[in-house]
């Protein structure tokens, strides 16, 4: 009797598989689309995101899905969608809870986004074309925005480490490490990199080095935190004629 019951279940599963495959489907047959999927905006384009092997560290900027307000290149807005920034690929991953899918959104369609991190702090990201190596569009976190822009690019890199076994039992010798890269964008669009040190920051303004140094000293800006960068750029914008 058990055998017959098993066979019926297997047959049912087989029939279901045959039924749900082959045809040209426009959504997962397990999820029924409702008018909640409708929007008068340009529909968010993307491709299926596949989870990568679980190296030590994380390839994401945040551990959890965070709510974000997204602005597309044509000005359309999507509010309160769940995203994680994959800082390894520099791509925005959306969790679409209506269809239960993780989607890597087309960078070409996105202009920027405001994200609320797990700790309640917010971040404003903009897609900016970076014309140095590697060339291409990058999601920069905007630390300060005026005539000058202070930018932060989160980049996760894969580095060599001693051999370890991941929770799935696979051995690896690489891990993900999140790096922070700081840039100043000048009004003409030129983007210059600097490190979070006063000396490196002064190199960004070679023709106004003395003036900038005096200004930072006068205002006690030590350039040890990201707030210092915002403060420094704001002061330079006001006091220095570039």
């Amino acid at each position, binding site marked *: 009797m058990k055998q017959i019951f098993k066979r019926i279940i297997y047959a049912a599963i087989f029939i279901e598989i045959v039924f749900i495959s*082959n045809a040209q*489907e426009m959504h997962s047959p397990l999820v*029924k689309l409702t008018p909640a999927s409708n929007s008068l905006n*340009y*529909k968010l384009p993307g*491709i299926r995101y596949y989870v990568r092997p679980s190296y030590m560290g994380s390839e994401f900027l945040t551990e959890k899905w965070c709510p974000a307000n997204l602005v597309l290149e044509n000005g359309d807005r999507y509010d309160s969608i769940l995203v994680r920034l994959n800082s390894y690929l520099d791509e925005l991953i959306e969790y*679409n809870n209506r269809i239960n899918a993780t989607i890597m959104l087309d960078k070409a369609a996105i202009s920027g986004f405001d994200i609320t991190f797990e700790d309640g702090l917010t971040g404003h990201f903009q897609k900016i074309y970076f014309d140095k190596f590697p060339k291409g569009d990058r999601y920069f976190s905007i630390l300060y925005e005026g005539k000058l822009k202070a930018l932060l690019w989160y980049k996760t890199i894969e580095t060599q480490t001693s051999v370890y076994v991941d929770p799935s039992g696979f051995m690896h010798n690489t891990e993900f490490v999140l790096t922070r890269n700081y840039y100043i964008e000048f009004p003409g669009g030129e983007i210059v990199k600097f490190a979070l040190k006063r000396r490196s920051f002064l190199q960004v303004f070679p023709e106004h080095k003395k003036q900038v140094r005096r200004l930072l000293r006068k205002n006690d800006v030590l350039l040890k935190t990201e707030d210092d960068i915002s403060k420094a750029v704001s002061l330079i914008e006001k006091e220095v004629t570039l």
Partner: protein
Amino acid sequence: MTQMKNIKRHIFLLLLAVSVFVNSQAQVKVHLFPDRSSCVSGDTLWFSTLIIPDGDAETGNVVHVQLDNSVNRHITNVSVACTDNQGQGYLLVPDSLSTGIYFLKAFVSGPEKDGTNVINQRLLTVYNRFGEDINSVNSPETNSSETFDQFNGMVIAAPDKTIGMRENVSIKIKIPEDRQSEIKTLIVTAGLADPFSEKNFPVFFPEKGTDTGSLSIPEKNGILLDGVVVAPDTKTPVSGAIVLLSIPDDSISYFDYCISDSAGIFRFYLRNAVGTGNLVIQARSQQYPVCNIKLLENYIETKDPSGVENILLSYDQKKYAETVINASYFNRLFNRYSLPPAKKLSVPAEFNFPFYGEPTATVYPGLFIDLPDFTEISRELLHGVQYRERKDGITMRVYNYGGSEIFTDEPLKLLDGIPVFDSHVFSKMGTTDIRKVDEVFYERFIGDLSFQGVVAVYTRKQSLSWIENTPGISLFGYSCLQPSKKWNLTARQNDKPNLPDFRKVFYRNRITKVLPENEISFQTSDLKGKLSVQVIAITRKNQVLYSCKQIEIK
């Protein structure tokens, strides 16, 4: 005594509350200024529109203008986009209209509830161009009418009391200097006065309207398109159907989808869609693989007139009607009938890539040896596409770069940007037919829709003829926003001096740089009668004022 005072106070407060409530119900007003109060069927009527917004409430900038007959039967409509709340457009008055008085109605979409839109209707007298012995005109009995305020102090100065036919006329419109700064726009029209309908120039007929389509969202430089999905057999609404809209284009085709609601209704917003063209719509649901589509048109319904009155024409009125009908006949004889050139429907691409994103690979079969059919093309050129023609049907699968395997389901197949569900369409296509093939080897998401890869075939000569033989795909001719066009009424008068000139409107212009003295000049036509110079002044506070003057043409 104190009780009396209390009652008075209560009444006062009640009146105050009522007044506040009435003011809070202020709405968007739309005014329409046609260039003529009468026309012959087949004429082109030009109009200007003015949107008076309701305070800070969000208002669309698209005005729908519709022509209804005296019993509110819809005849035609156009949609124009306004800039700074003012717009202009034209309406082709159908050739077949019978003689009578018609309603011109203008409205914008907005969040008003049904029945609270006030439509400021204008009347248009139409003379059928084949009409003979017109003795009377059917006129709807309207309940109430309002008139624009007269512009006191405006002077319309003509050099002479009478002017001749084909005479160059120069007219000065003088505005008191203290009022010049308050005038934003002048709409000036000079034309032949119709003794029957001229009185309607400053008059409009407010009437409450109820929308029939999707008027609940403000339209900004776009058109809302509504429709219903119905079952092919029972004709009942189908809910949860996936409705796909495609607008083929030479460069990047437009694509959108919508899921029908419980009443089977779907809605698309065609942003910046200008012109007239074909919409390809198809709907599929789990219950019905092929559904029928019915589009809902954006008309506004107003209360039917209480009756239709037959008005007898006087001698002068009858003579005018005969003159313009004959003029229309001879005008066609000499100048031929030419419609304003229709603009092909175009929806500007907002992104530099098609809706399915950047293709993984693009193949141009023309760069290779000629191949006779799609089987050969897929086998030789489309690496990663598995196309099989068997007795029991055609299957297509593509490689999945993301999962490093072949997808189990069919990809999204597109022919010139239109989704295709029957691969037989491709089977006979060879190198001579196909311009390029875009391939996407990822599971592709477009909103909440997902496709296991994309194969997009673009033909050398785009044609929609294949749709006729494909069940489940509907093709609709649809007019979106009217392309902006300038009045060109004076251009024709000088180029053919030996031909008769039967223009009824000689001048039409919207003056935005208003001076204390504004001069207009034009040439009259070969038609005798009275020249009517009509001026509509729109103030910066959106008040509409009018002034007019009549001069004899001998």
